[in-house]
C-alpha cells in the first residue's frame, strides 16, 4: 500500500492576515473583545484631537504667523526657525562647519557600530584621539583661516549634541577609573574616589551648573574669564563621571570572584587583569546601565538653559518669545520633545542591539 499524503490545505479563512491577527490578539474571547473595543474607543476619543491638531488642521506652509489661519498647529514657526533650532546663533555662512563636524561624527560612529567594517581599531583611535581636535577647530575656528566663532554663539541642537557627546565620551573613562579606584586596595586612592563620587553624586546637577556659572567667576580675578560653555562642560563631565563610576562598580561586582582569581593565577598584573579579563565581561553586563546614564545625561543637558546657554530647548523658548511668534510655544515643545525622543530612542535601540550581539551565552540569561 502506498502512502499518499493529502495536499496541504490552506489555513482556514479568518486565521490569516490582518483579520487573523486581530482575532488572535484582540478579540480572543468575550472579555478581551470588550476590553479592545473600550480601549479603542478611548484611544480614538483622546488621540483624535491630537492628530487633528498636529496633522489634519495644521498649517505647514508659509513664512509668517499670518499664514497660520486654521485652528491646528502652526508648523510654520518651526520651519521658519529651523536654522536657529539646529545651529543657534552660529553665523549663517559658517554653518557648513557644524554640518561637516556632525556628519563626520555620524560617519565615524556608523563605522564603529556597523558590524564587519575593517580597521575598527584605527577608526576608534582616530575618533577618540584626533577627531575631538578636528571638531573643536571646525566648531570654534580661529585656525586655518576659519573665522573664529565664540561659544556664546553656539546653540540649538548642535550645542545639545556638543554637551551630550562631550559629557558621554569624557564621563565613561573617568567613571571607569573612579570605579576601579573605589574597589582598589590602596587606601588613599580608594578614599579619594569615594569622597569624589559621594560629593558629586550628593548634589543636584542644577547646583553644579549654578556653581559653575555664578560662583566660580567670583573666585577668578576680574579680568580673567573662563568660557561659560567650558565651565558647564567640566561641571557636567565631573557630575556624570560620578554616576558612571557607580554603574561601572555595579558591573565589576557582578563578575564572580573566580574570574579575578583565575586572572591572578595566570600571573597577570592589575591592568592586564582588568583589561583582558574583568572589564570586557563587566562592561558587557553594564550596557543597560551605561546607556541609561547616557540617555539621562542627554536629557539633562537641557538644564543648561538656567545658566543662559541656548540649547535646543532654551532656543525654542527664546524663539517663542519673539513678539512675531508669541503663542506658538506648544508647537515648539512638541518639536523639541520629538527631537529628544528620536535621539534617546536611537540610543536605546542601539544598546539592545549591542547586548544581543555581545551576548556570548554566558551569565544568567538564557
Amino acid at each position, binding site marked *: 500500500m502506498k502512502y499518499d499524503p493529502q495536499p496541504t490545505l490552506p489555513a482556514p479563512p479568518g486565521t490569516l492576515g490582518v483579520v487573523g491577527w486581530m482575532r488572535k490578539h484582540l478579540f480572543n474571547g468575550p472579555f478581551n473583545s470588550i476590553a479592545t473595543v473600550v480601549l479603542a474607543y478611548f484611544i480614538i476619543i483622546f488621540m483624535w484631537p491630537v492628530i487633528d491638531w498636529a496633522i489634519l488642521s495644521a498649517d505647514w506652509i508659509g513664512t509668517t504667523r499670518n499664514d497660520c489661519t486654521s485652528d491646528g498647529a502652526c508648523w510654520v514657526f518651526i520651519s521658519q526657525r529651523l536654522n536657529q533650532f539646529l545651529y543657534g546663533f552660529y553665523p549663517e555662512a559658517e554653518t557648513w562647519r557644524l554640518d561637516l563636524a556632525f556628519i563626520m561624527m555620524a560617519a565615524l560612529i556608523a563605522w564603529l557600530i556597523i558590524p564587519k567594517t575593517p580597521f575598527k581599531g584605527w577608526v576608534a583611535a582616530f575618533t577618540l584621539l584626533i577627531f575631538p581636535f578636528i571638531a573643536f577647530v571646525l566648531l570654534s575656528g580661529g585656525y586655518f583661516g576659519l573665522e573664529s566663532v565664540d561659544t556664546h554663539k553656539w546653540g540649538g541642537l548642535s550645542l545639545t549634541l556638543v554637551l551630550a557627546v562631550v559629557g558621554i565620551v569624557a564621563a565613561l573613562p573617568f567613571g571607569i577609573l573612579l570605579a576601579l579606584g573605589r574597589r582598589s586596595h590602596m587606601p588613599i586612592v580608594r578614599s579619594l574616589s569615594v569622597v569624589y563620587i559621594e560629593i558629586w553624586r550628593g548634589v543636584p546637577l542644577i547646583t553644579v551648573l549654578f556653581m559653575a556659572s555664578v560662583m566660580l567667576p567670583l573666585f577668578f580675578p576680574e*579680568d580673567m*574669564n573662563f568660557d561659560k560653555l567650558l565651565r558647564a562642560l567640566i561641571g557636567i563631565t565631573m557630575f556624570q563621571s560620578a554616576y558612571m563610576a557607580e554603574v561601572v562598580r555595579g558591573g565589576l561586582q557582578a563578575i564572580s570572584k573566580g574570574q579575578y582569581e583565575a586572572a591572578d593565577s595566570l600571573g597577570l598584573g592589575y591592568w592586564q587583569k582588568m583589561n583582558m579579563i574583568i572589564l570586557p565581561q563587566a562592561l558587557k553586563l553594564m550596557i543597560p546601565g551605561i546607556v541609561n546614564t547616557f540617555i539621562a545625561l542627554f536629557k539633562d543637558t537641557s538644564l543648561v538653559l538656567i545658566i543662559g546657554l541656548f540649547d535646543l530647548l532654551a532656543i525654542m*523658548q*527664546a524663539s517663542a518669545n519673539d*513678539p512675531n511668534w508669541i503663542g506658538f510655544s506648544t508647537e515648539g515643545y512638541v518639536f523639541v520633545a520629538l527631537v529628544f525622543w528620536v535621539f534617546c530612542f536611537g540610543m536605546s535601540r542601539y544598546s539592545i542591539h549591542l547586548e544581543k550581539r555581545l551576548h556570548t551565552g554566558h551569565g544568567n540569561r538564557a
Partner: protein
Amino acid sequence: MIKHVAFASVAASLLFATSSYAANTLDTVKERNTLLCGVTSGVPGFSVPDDKGNWKGLDVDVCRAVAAAVLGDNTKVKYIPLTAKERFTALASGEIDMLSRVTTWTLSRDSQLGINFAGVNYYDGQGFMVKKDLGLKSVKELDGATICVQSGTTTELNMADYFRSHGLEHTPVVFDTNEQAAASFDSGRCDAFTTDLSQAYGLRTRMKDPSSVVALPEVISKEPLGPVVRQGDDQWFNIVKWSLNAMLNAEELGISSANVDQMKSSENPNVQRLLGGSEGLAKGLGVSEDWGYQIVKQVGNYGEAFDRNVGKDSPLNIDRGINRLWNQGGLQYAPPIR
C-alpha cells in the same frame, strides 16, 4: 610668618592691581572693540533673538546706543544671555560691561549689590487687563470682580493691598504661571487679569482676539526698569547714563534717525550740542565728538525704539502711557545736554 604675610599682601596687591585696571571699563571696551552686554534669554519686546538670530528689543537698543557712542558702531555688541539669578554676578565678575535686562531699580539692589542704575528706559508697573465690551474705565469699577493672577508673587500682594486700601472687594483666582492666568482670563474664567503691564501686553497677543482686550489706566506698582553698571567706575556709569539720555533728548528735540542728517545743520543750540556741534562736551564723557549723532543715526531716538520694539509698530502694541516724554504727559525726563 612674616614671609607669608608679605607674600599674601603682594598677591593681594597684584589682585587689586588687575581689578583696578579692569575697573576702567571704557578702556577695556575700546581695546576689545566690542561691548559685552547682558540681556535676557528672551523677553518679548525687550531682548529676544529674531528669525535671523539678531537680538532685538528696547533693552537691546540701549546696548546698541552705548556701542554707537563708544565704538561708533552699534553692531559691535556681544549679547550675553543671562538668567535673573546670574545677572548681577556676571556684572560683578566682569563677564559683561553692562546689564540691560528688564531689571527693576530698587533701593536694596542699588545699595547692596555693588551696582548702579544708569537710568530708566521703561517705566513698568502692575496693571489690569479687561475685555473691552465691559466698558470699564477704571480699576475702581472692578468692585467684586474675579481677577486672574499668578500665585506667590508680589503681583498678588500688590493687588490685595490696592483693593483693600480702596475699600473694594475682589476674588483672586490664582494660577501657577502668568500664561495660565492669561489663558483663563481669555476663556472667560475671570473679569480681569493682572500682572506687570509689559508682560500683560505680550500675553495679550496670544489671546483669541487681542484687540478686544484693553488695559485699565491705573498702574498700581512701580517697576522702573533700566540699564545697570558696576559701581566704582563713574566714567562708564556716565557714558551709559548719557547714551540713554541722548536718545530721550533726541526725541524731545524732534531728531530721529530719518532726519538726523538735516538736523545736523540746525541752528538750534540744543540740537547742535547733542549732535556734536559744540566742542568739549564729549571730552568730559570720554567719547568722540559725534557720539550723539551716531546714537541717533544708528539706533534712533527713544520714541523710535519704543514704537519699533514694544509700541505701535510691534505686535505687542503697548500703549506709550507713562513712558511718554515729560512734556507729553509721561515720566521720561532726561537732563539737558549742555
